[in-house]
C-alpha cells in the first residue's frame, strides 16, 4: 500500500489488469499484445494516423517526385520566366525559368535529409549525455551540466548562422552544426527524467549485483526512456526542419545551386505579391511536413504513455 512512483514510460504498469498469473497463453502472444496495445491506441488517434499518411506521401513525393518531373531543378526554361502554374510547369517557374516542381522535390529531399540526420544525431547524443550524467553523478554530472548550461546561455542561433554561413551552404556542415546547437535542450530533459530513473530500485539492484556502470546506462537506463526518445526524435525532426528552413530563408543555410524548402521560400518571399505561387508551394510542403510530424509525435505520446487517459477509452 505504499505509494508507487509513477513509472516513466511503462505501458504495462498503468493497467495492471494484464492477467496476473493466469498462465496459458504463449509468450509470443504476450509480446504481440503489447505492440498491439500501442498500435491500437495510436490508430484510435485519427489526427495521428492522418499525420502518418501525409508524412508518407511527402516522403514518397521527395523520393519519386523527380520521375514525373519534366525539367531538372537547375535547368532553365527561358520561354517561361515567372510563369504561374501551367500544364507545362505544374508549380510555375521563377524569374530565371527554373521549374518550381523540380525545385520543390529537390528542396524537400534536402530538408528531409538534414532533418532526419539532425534528429538522429541529437537523440543519440542527448540520450547518452543525459543518462550518463544522471547515472554517474559526481564529476561527470557537473561537467555535463556545465556544458549544457553554458550552451543554453550561448547565442546558439548566432553561432549557427555564422558557422553555416561560413561553410558556403554545405548541407552536411549545416546538419552537424544543427546537432551541436540543439542536443543540449533534450539532454537536459533526459537528465531530469533519468534522475528519478537512477533512484529506481532496478538500477540499484543492478549496481549491487556488480554490473558495470556503462552497461547499466545502456541496458537499464536508455531502454527505459525509450518512448521519450521516440517522441524526442519526431519532435527533433520538426525542430530541425524549422531551424534549417529559418537559416536558409535568411540566406545563411543551404545556398544555390543547392535548394531547400527554406531557401525556396526565401526566393518566393521577395516576389510574394507578383508571383505568390513561388511562396505558396514550398510553404505548403513545409507546413505539411512539420504539422504531420507533430501529429505523429502527439499520437505516439498518447499511445506510449501508460497514464494517458485517452488510453482508458475503449
Amino acid at each position, binding site marked *: 500500500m505504499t505509494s508507487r512512483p509513477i513509472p516513466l514510460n511503462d505501458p504495462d504498469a498503468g493497467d495492471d489488469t494484464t492477467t496476473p498469473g493466469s498462465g496459458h497463453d504463449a509468450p509470443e502472444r504476450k509480446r504481440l499484445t503489447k505492440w498491439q496495445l500501442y498500435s491500437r491506441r495510436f490508430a484510435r488517434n485519427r489526427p495521428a494516423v492522418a499525420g502518418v499518411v501525409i508524412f508518407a506521401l511527402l516522403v514518397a513525393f521527395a523520393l519519386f517526385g523527380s520521375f514525373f518531373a519534366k525539367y531538372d531543378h537547375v535547368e532553365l526554361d527561358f520561354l517561361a520566366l515567372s510563369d504561374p502554374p501551367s500544364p507545362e510547369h505544374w508549380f510555375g517557374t521563377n524569374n530565371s525559368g527554373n521549374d518550381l516542381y523540380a525545385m520543390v522535390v529537390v528542396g524537400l529531399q534536402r530538408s528531409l535529409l538534414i532533418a532526419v540526420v539532425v534528429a538522429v544525431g541529437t537523440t543519440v547524443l542527448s540520450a547518452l549525455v543525459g543518462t550518463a550524467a544522471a547515472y554517474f553523478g559526481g564529476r561527470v554530472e557537473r561537467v555535463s551540466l556545465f556544458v549544457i548550461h553554458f550552451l543554453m546561455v550561448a547565442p546558439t542561433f548566432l553561432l549557427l548562422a555564422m558557422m553555416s554561413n561560413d561553410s558556403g551552404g554545405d548541407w552536411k556542415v549545416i546538419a552537424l552544426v544543427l546537432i551541436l546547437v540543439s542536443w543540449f535542450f533534450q539532454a537536459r530533459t533526459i537528465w531530469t527524467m533519468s534522475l528519478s530513473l537512477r533512484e529506481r530500485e532496478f538500477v540499484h*539492484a543492478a549496481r549491487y*549485483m556488480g554490473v558495470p556502470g556503462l552497461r547499466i546506462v545502456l541496458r537499464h537506463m536508455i531502454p527505459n526512456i525509450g518512448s521519450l526518445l521516440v517522441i524526442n526524435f519526431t519532435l527533433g525532426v520538426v525542430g530541425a526542419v524549422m531551424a534549417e528552413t529559418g537559416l536558409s530563408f535568411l540566406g545563411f543555410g543551404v545556398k544555390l545551386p543547392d535548394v531547400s524548402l527554406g531557401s525556396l521560400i526565401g526566393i518566393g518571399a521577395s516576389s510574394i505579391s507578383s508571383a505568390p505561387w513561388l511562396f505558396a508551394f514550398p510553404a505548403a510542403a513545409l507546413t505539411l511536413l512539420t504539422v504531420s510530424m507533430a501529429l505523429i509525435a502527439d499520437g505516439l505520446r498518447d499511445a506510449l504513455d501508460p497514464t494517458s487517459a485517452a488510453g*482508458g477509452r475503449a
Partner: protein
Amino acid sequence: MTTPVLSVRDLTVSFPSEAGRVDAVRGVSFDVAAGRTLGIVGESGSGKSVTSLAVMGLLDENASIGGSVTFDGQELLGKSDAQMSKIRGNGIAMIFQDPLTSLTPVFTVGDQIVEALTVHNPKLSKRAAWDRAVELLRLVGIPRPQERVRSFPHEFSGGMRQRVVIAIAMANDPKLIIADEPTTALDVTIQAQILDLIKTAQRETGAAVMMITHDMGVVANVADDVLVMYAGRAIEQAPVDELFADTRMPYSIGLLGAIPRVDKTEKTPLVPITGAPPLLVDLPDACPFADRCPIVTPECRAAEPALVTVGGKADHRAACIRAEEIRAGRIDGGPVYPVPEVPASRFDEVPRDLREPTLEVENLTKSFPLTKGAFLKRKVGEVHAVKGVSFDVREGETMAIVGESGSGKTTTLLQIMDFAPQDDGDVRIVGTSVADLKHAREERALRRDVQIVFQDPMGSLDPRMTVFDVVAEPLRTVGTAAKDIGPRVDELLDLVGLDPAHSDRFPAAFSGGQRQRIGIARALATNPKLVVLDEPVSALDVSVQAGVINLLDELKGRLGLSYLFVAHDLSVVRHIADRVAVMYLGSFVEHGDVDEVFDDPQHPYTRALLSAIPVPDPVRERTREHIVLTGDLPSPTDTITGCAFVSRCPLYQTLDPAEQTRCETEVPALTGRDGVHVNACHYR
C-alpha cells in the same frame, strides 16, 4: 436500533477500460448508525475505496454508478456536483490516505480550515472563522495553534498534516466521517495517535464513522461492525467480536490466518492464500474466491453465492454456500487451510557462538553535510543518519532492524551494500573487510556473497527486460558460461515457486507477490551467503505477504542463508527474525534475541512501539495497555546532548529532576546481557 445515518443499497460502480468494463463494486449494501464505526476491510482492488468515493460523489465522470445511497433521508446518487457540494464537508467529511498530498501546498493550513468553514457558512465572519480554525487545531492536538495556523503544509510532519486533515473533517460537525486508510502512510506510533484522535473526533461530533482499511488490527481496534470485501462484493458482514470469534467465509479466515502476530511466541508457518484476486472484467457467475479456496466444491462454480445470514444470527452474514459447515475457522474438525511445512535448517542445532559470522558491522556511521545558501554552498553542520551501529549476523540466522521512518535503518543497509569504508569502524562480509577492496574485480567478487531484495516488487525489476534476463543478469555479471545460464535460471525460478516456462514474459505480466519471488530468485542466483532484505513484504497485500514470508523461511532453512532484514512492521519481524535491533534516530536502543526483546521489552521506546501495534483480536485489543507516544521524531538537525528519546519518553516524565538531568546530558550505552539482550536506557 435508530435509523442509520448512511444507508447503502446494492451499490454498483463500473469503469470503462482497455480490457473492457471493470465492475469495481458489484452490489454492496450496508448501514452506518450515528456514533458507530463500520470497518470495511479488503485488499487492494477489492472495491473498498471506490465504495467510499461513490458515497462522496467524487468518482471520475466516466464511472457509472447504480443502486442507492441514502444519507440523512436524502438520496445522494443522481445529485449534481453543486448539490453534492452542499453535503460534502458539511454532512459527510472525508479523511484521505496520504496526508502529504492531501493539503494544497500553496495555502496555509489556516486558510484551508477557514475555507472548509466559510464554504458552508458564508455568513461567518473572517475573525470568527480564524478563531474556530485555531480552536480546531488545538482540539486535534497541534501545539501552539495560534502560531501554527499560519504555517504552510510542508512545515508539518506527516502525522501533523493528518491532524490538520482531521481538523478540516471535524470543522462542520459532520454526521458521517469517512476515513480511507487514514493511517496506512504513517508510522505505528503515529498511527496509534491518529486512531485515538479519530475516536475523539467521533465522540465530539457524535458522527458515524466509515473506516476503510486493509489492516485487521486497525479494524479490531476501532470498529463496531465489519464488512469484508472481495472482488467488489461484501463477502462477510458481522459485529466485530462475532466476526473475529466465529469467522465463516474462507476468504476472511485466510485473511486472519495470513497475518503474523506480534503477541504470539510460537513460530508456526503463516497460512497463505494461494493465487491472486480475479480481474473484475467479465466475471463468470461463480464464487469469485473459488479459484483460491481450499474447500471449493463444484457447486461453488455454479452460481455466485448471495450474502445470507448464517448461524441463525440476524447480524452475521456471509457469502459462502458452505458457511454453515464452518465454525470458528474450522471445518469437519480440521482447519480450513492446511498448514504448510517449513523444512528445518541444518543450523538449528548449532549454538549461535559456533556459527561463522557472515556479516560483522562495527561502529558504522553515516553523516550527511548540511549546506546552506543557493549559490555558494557552505557546510553549516552535519546530520548523523547513523551513529555508531555495531552488530553481526551469523550463518543461518535472520537479523532484523526495526524502526520508524527516519530512524536510519535503510541508510545502515545501503551503507553496507555500498561497501562504504568506515573511518573509525569496519564492515566485514564473510570475513573480508570492505576497506581492503582495491580493485573493481575484487569488489565484484565480494558482491557474489551478498545480494539484496528490495521493497517495491514493481520498481526493482526492469520493466523492459524479460524475467529470464532479469534473473540471468547477476549470472552474466559474474561471468557464468552462457550454456549454464539457462538451466540455472530455470532452477532458480522453480526454487521460488514460479513456472520456468514463464521466463520469457515481462515482469508486468506477474502479480506483486510473483514479482517479489522473481526478485528473490535474482538475489539467489550467485549463491550468496547473505541476503539483505529491505522491507521485502511491506508493499504486498497480507494474503500474498504470508506466502513470501514462508518462502523466505523455507529458503533460509534449505540453503543455509543469513538474512539482514529491515522492516517497520514488528509483527513480520517477530515472525521471521532470530535477532532484532530496534533503531531510533540512528542508534540501536535495544538489541538481542527476538523472543527476549518482544516478550520482555526494556527500552521505553520498544515498549511504546510494541504496544502501538493493533493486534487482530478485538477482545485483546480492548484490554491491552496502549502507550501512545506524544509528538514526533525530533528533526535530525536538532542537536541532542543526551538520550535521543527524551523528548517523547514516557518514563522520563516519571523520573525525579536529578535523574532527568542524567537523561538530558548523558548518552546512554547499550547495557545488559551481552549478545543476548541489551538496551540503551539509564533506568532499565
